[in-house]
């Protein structure tokens, strides 16, 4: 509630600076909402509102504050006897309000004036300055006025110091800074004062823009440095100057140093937090540069930078050196390009994308998501090439198994890979350097080091012809795959699934960007489809062999079926003309699995295959024209074959007739008499426990359960029971593939064009 009261004060001042930054506009918007009738509203509410008391108290405080401000404005009354008492009372009032709710900018304006004009004694000035806490913002004009008092030299040195400290602490809350920046020269001149110097340095550090950096100022600062020696505050300012004008000055900050400025804020720490909370909204971010130490590290391990990824820095001098003559004014007033360090938001990037000043080291974009966007959409070859070179060299240099005796930096390398993967996920695109790196390093990989990162890199290989990549990558991977543990196999399958997904996404995007009418493009699409299908077949081969090696592990099968869950939906989900079925080794392993969830997953995949194939069939009929992506009848045949065996096993209890054919003589030799229904939804090993618990549910006291009692009505109850147990895949499969009639039969997809 309290800020409302002050609105009327803010209003006057605010009108003068209405056309300003976003922060300002949000403030005025807020005011429009609440401003017009606030005083009346408050009194009304005050009568029938439980919080009225507080407001009343607030009102009183407000009045007292007005009086106090009035008192200070008039100046000290010499004759008054109890002058000290009144002064003390008013000071207390101001302090209380200030620390509680902050002062309106107009009040600050008045009080700041008083504190610096020297009307009162030093002690009073100090106390006033200390409680100059804004409710929301400080007007720029008050600061300018206050600075003008400094010129008159009415106040003591300590007051000046306190004023500068206050200015630094409150810098973020000053509504605008253009006028203050115009006083740059004045502040700069104040550097001469030894007592003020640290604080002025800090202020200048906050204030300096590129156009403020002038050769004469550089020289002046260097003189100061020569006079005072290595002062941290000077170092900070100098390095900022170096940042803006590297052709004028060079400085390298010590590695250890972290604090460059005396903490000006600690007087107001709590108050600052409160103001920030009051402002809440997006406070204008001041331009603050990271004062990183210089990048040279004299050979502890290698001299390529402190961290692996270079610090973001505008390409400062390459451009200037590229010019014929280096005229100072030229590059100090360089306009038209947008400095990177000001790039804070995506809209800014969009507005300035044509005139962005690129970083001097392209590698630094890896840590900057906005610039990653830029890298992603730019088709400028030098930019990409610079990034490519940097990334491939860094990967090569950092890779811990690429060179011997490099293992102690494993953590660092892992982090670096994580950063790259994060960037790739962010862009949804793989980097070519990473692919090249994989070619070189995969043959040397032990399969353990940074496994998850490395396999993630594999999943981000940009789309390319599979047969070209296979000898370089997948053949090496297969060797590791077959000789490693089941967990490694599972993670490889997982990453291959992601690779497939990334390729599919990329292709589906690519197709929709170009019209699919011209025949040459269709051959291209055919080529890419061919590549994808080769990948799928390759994974099929890998998984069949892996199943055999791991003796049909359920765990592995889960990962394999996960892969095929992606595969079966390519036609519908990605709108790409491709349906590849799984190899028999996987299908029958899943069908005969002891695990219900595997069977359920298989049912779901079969269901999706069906959907995709019927959709494809429909499209073919609609289009009439013989496109080259008609699936061969073989795919349909294969699917129908699988389907009949599945329905034969699970539903019709004729397991080995169609589908899998086993000679009845051999079956008799096994000695199993009831082999016919031993694989249906009741007797299948993975369903048997469901059947038993279903029957027990029916008649809990029964000692022996009769499986064959599940028939007719009970059969469909049993199915409902199964569905209620979470077997959604089975449900979908049965709903779509089994024709409900007295005679259950499998419903294949007709692959003659008579659907």
């Amino acid at each position, binding site marked *: 509630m309290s800020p409302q009261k002050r609105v009327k004060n803010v209003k006057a001042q605010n009108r003068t600076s209405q056309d300003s930054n976003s922060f300002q506009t949000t403030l005025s918007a807020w005011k429009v909402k609440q401003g017009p009738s606030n005083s009346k509203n408050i009194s009304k509410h005050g009568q029938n509102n439980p919080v009225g008391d507080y407001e009343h108290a607030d009102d009183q405080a407000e009045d007292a504050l007005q009086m106090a401000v009035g008192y200070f404005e008039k100046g000290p009354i010499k004759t008054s006897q109890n002058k000290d008492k009144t002064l003390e009372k008013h000071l207390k009032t101001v302090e209380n309000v200030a620390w509680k709710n902050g002062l309106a900018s107009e009040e600050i304006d008045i009080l700041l004036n008083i504190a610096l004009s020297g009307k009162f004694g030093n002690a009073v000035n100090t106390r006033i300055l200390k409680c100059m806490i804004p409710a929301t913002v400080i007007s720029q004009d008050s600061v300018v006025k206050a600075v003008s008092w400094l010129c008159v030299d009415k106040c003591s040195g300590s007051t000046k110091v306190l004023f500068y400290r206050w200015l630094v602490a409150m810098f973020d809350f000053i509504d605008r800074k253009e006028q203050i920046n115009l006083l740059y020269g004045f502040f700069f001149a104040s550097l001469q004062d030894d007592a003020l110097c640290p604080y002025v340095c800090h202020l200048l550090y906050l204030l300096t823009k590129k156009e403020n950096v002038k050769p004469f100022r550089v020289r002046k600062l260097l003189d100061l440095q020569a006079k005072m020696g290595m002062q941290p505050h000077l170092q900070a300012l100098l390095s900022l100057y*170096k940042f803006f004008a590297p052709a004028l000055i060079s*400085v390298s900050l010590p590695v250890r140093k972290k604090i460059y400025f005396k903490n000006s804020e600690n007087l107001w720490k709590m108050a600052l937090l409160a103001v920030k909370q009051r402002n809440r909204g997006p406070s204008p971010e001041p331009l603050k540069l990271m004062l990183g130490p210089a990048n040279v590290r*004299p050979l502890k391990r290698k001299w390529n930078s402190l961290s692996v990824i270079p610090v973001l820095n505008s390409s400062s001098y390459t451009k200037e050196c*590229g010019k014929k003559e280096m005229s100072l004014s030229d590059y100090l007033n360089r306009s038209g390009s947008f400095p990177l360090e000001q790039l804070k938001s995506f809209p800014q990037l969009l507005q300035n994308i044509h005139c962005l000043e690129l970083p001097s080291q392209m590698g630094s974009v890896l840590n900057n998501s906005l610039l990653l966007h830029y890298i992603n959409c730019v088709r400028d070859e030098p930019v*990409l090439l610079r990034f490519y070179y940097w990334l491939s060299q860094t990967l090569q240099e950092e890779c811990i198994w690429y060179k011997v005796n490099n293992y102690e930096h494993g953590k660092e390398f892992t982090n670096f890979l994580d950063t790259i993967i994060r960037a790739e996920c962010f862009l949804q695109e793989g980097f070519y350097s990473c692919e090249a790196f994989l070619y070189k390093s995969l043959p040397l990989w032990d399969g353990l080091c940074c496994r998850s990162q490395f396999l993630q890199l594999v999943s981000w290989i940009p789309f390319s012809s599979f047969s070209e990549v296979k000898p370089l990558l997948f053949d090496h991977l297969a060797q590791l795959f077959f000789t490693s543990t089941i967990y490694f196999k599972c993670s490889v399958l997982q990453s291959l699934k992601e690779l497939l997904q990334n390729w599919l996404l990329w292709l589906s995007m690519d197709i929709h960007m170009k019209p699919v009418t011209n025949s040459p493009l269709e051959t291209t699409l055919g080529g890419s489809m061919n590549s994808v*299908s080769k990948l799928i077949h390759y994974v099929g081969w890998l998984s069949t062999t892996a199943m055999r090696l791991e003796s049909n592990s359920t765990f592995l099968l889960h990962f394999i079926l996960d892969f095929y869950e992606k595969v079966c939906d390519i036609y519908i989900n990605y709108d790409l003309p491709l349906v590849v079925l799984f190899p028999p080794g996987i299908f029958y392993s899943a069908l005969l699995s002891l695990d219900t969830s595997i069977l359920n997953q298989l049912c779901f995949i079969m269901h999706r295959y069906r959907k995709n194939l019927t959709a494809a069939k429909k499209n073919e009929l609609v289009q009439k024209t013989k496109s080259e992506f008609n699936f*061969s009848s073989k795919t349909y045949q294969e699917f129908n074959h699988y389907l009949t065996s599945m329905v034969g096993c699970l539903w019709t209890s004729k397991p080995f007739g169609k589908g899998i054919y086993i000679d009845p003589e051999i079956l008799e030799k096994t000695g199993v008499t009831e082999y016919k229904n031993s694989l249906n939804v009741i007797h299948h090993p993975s369903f048997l426990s469901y059947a038993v618990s279903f029957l027990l549910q029916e008649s809990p006291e029964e000692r022996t359960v009769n499986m064959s009692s599940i028939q007719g009505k009970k059969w469909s109850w049993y199915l409902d029971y199964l569905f209620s147990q979470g077997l959604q895949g089975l449900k979908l499969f049965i709903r779509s593939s089994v024709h409900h009639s007295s005679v259950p039969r499998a419903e294949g997809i007709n692959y003659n064009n008579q659907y």
Partner: protein
Amino acid sequence: MDSYDIPESTPSASSRPEDYFVGATPLQKRLESIRKQTSFIPTPPRRKIPQCSQLQEDADPQNVAFLLHKQWTLYSLTPLYKFSYSHLKEYSRLLNAFIVAEKQKGLAVEVGEDFNIKVIFSTLLGMKGTQRDPEAFLVQGLILSPRLKCSGTILTYCNLCLLGSSDPSTLAFQVAGTTGACHHTGILSKSQLPSENREGKVLWTGWFCCIFGDSLLETVSEDFTCLPLFLANGAESNTAIIGTWFQKTFDCYFSPLAINAFNLSWMAAMWTACKVDHYVATTEFLWSVPCSPQSLDISYAIHPEDAKALWDSIHKTPGEVTQEEVDLFMDCLYSHFHRHFKIHLSATRLVRVSTSVASAHTDGKIKILCHKYLIGVLAYLTELAVFQIE
């Protein structure tokens, strides 16, 4: 394990490899070339025996004299972005200030001021294999004694003379961009050259070159300058500072260039094959046996004429060296050693090769002894550097 083959059931679209990339970007093309490189044997099975190149003969032999008989540490370097030969003087100013700032951590320095450290960039004329190769250039870091901190013109002048060897008459180096250099020479010719020569000491030298770097040149645009081979002599801390400056300024990347045993044996064969008028050093091989507690080094010195004779008996294709010949040459050495000492050298690691032409260490250190084959040696090193950055 069953053989992997693809069923024919998939879409039967014709697929030509070039169809995969409709608008192949340069990066994709680059990747293609890397694929080719990785899938075949990393090095071509035959190379030319180093010959004295025409371009090198054109250049003043004194120019390159000081590059010989020094130990250089090898680095590979990715292409320099926006490097310009016409701004060498400005680069030296900036690098100079950078080095001084690095040396006195925390103290800012003005660019262009006079320091007791001086950096000079200069081009090395004639150090190229073909006309297309970019000009090699040299960076030298000098330390000047305090009393030389006088006027800039004199410094420019005396640096000119410091660049060469100790012989003051070899002032052939040009500081590119110093158009006024001749003028100053005229003015200052009275001053005593030898006395000034003593004042500066070369602390650090590094040079960038590209000899027959065609494979790299083809793939980059004109914004880049390809000088894949960098050779440094001096304290590594200095190399670090200067390298960092280059990395920051031209967005390039230095990485140490190690020479593996395979390439060392190639060097041994190629350098033995070179005709040398008078042998200055024995042909020497160093093998390292990684055994505990201390590793054992085996040095094997051969009289260069014997080595040459051995080579001549193996050598068949005139002017060229082939992989088989290299293998045979090394095998002969191994079997000879085995006959006498019963040690299979092929089971150890070749660490160093030194011949009258040059000597190379597996850590990426090289010393070139023979002026005649300078270009030839550098061409092979360039090839290795290009292979590392590709």
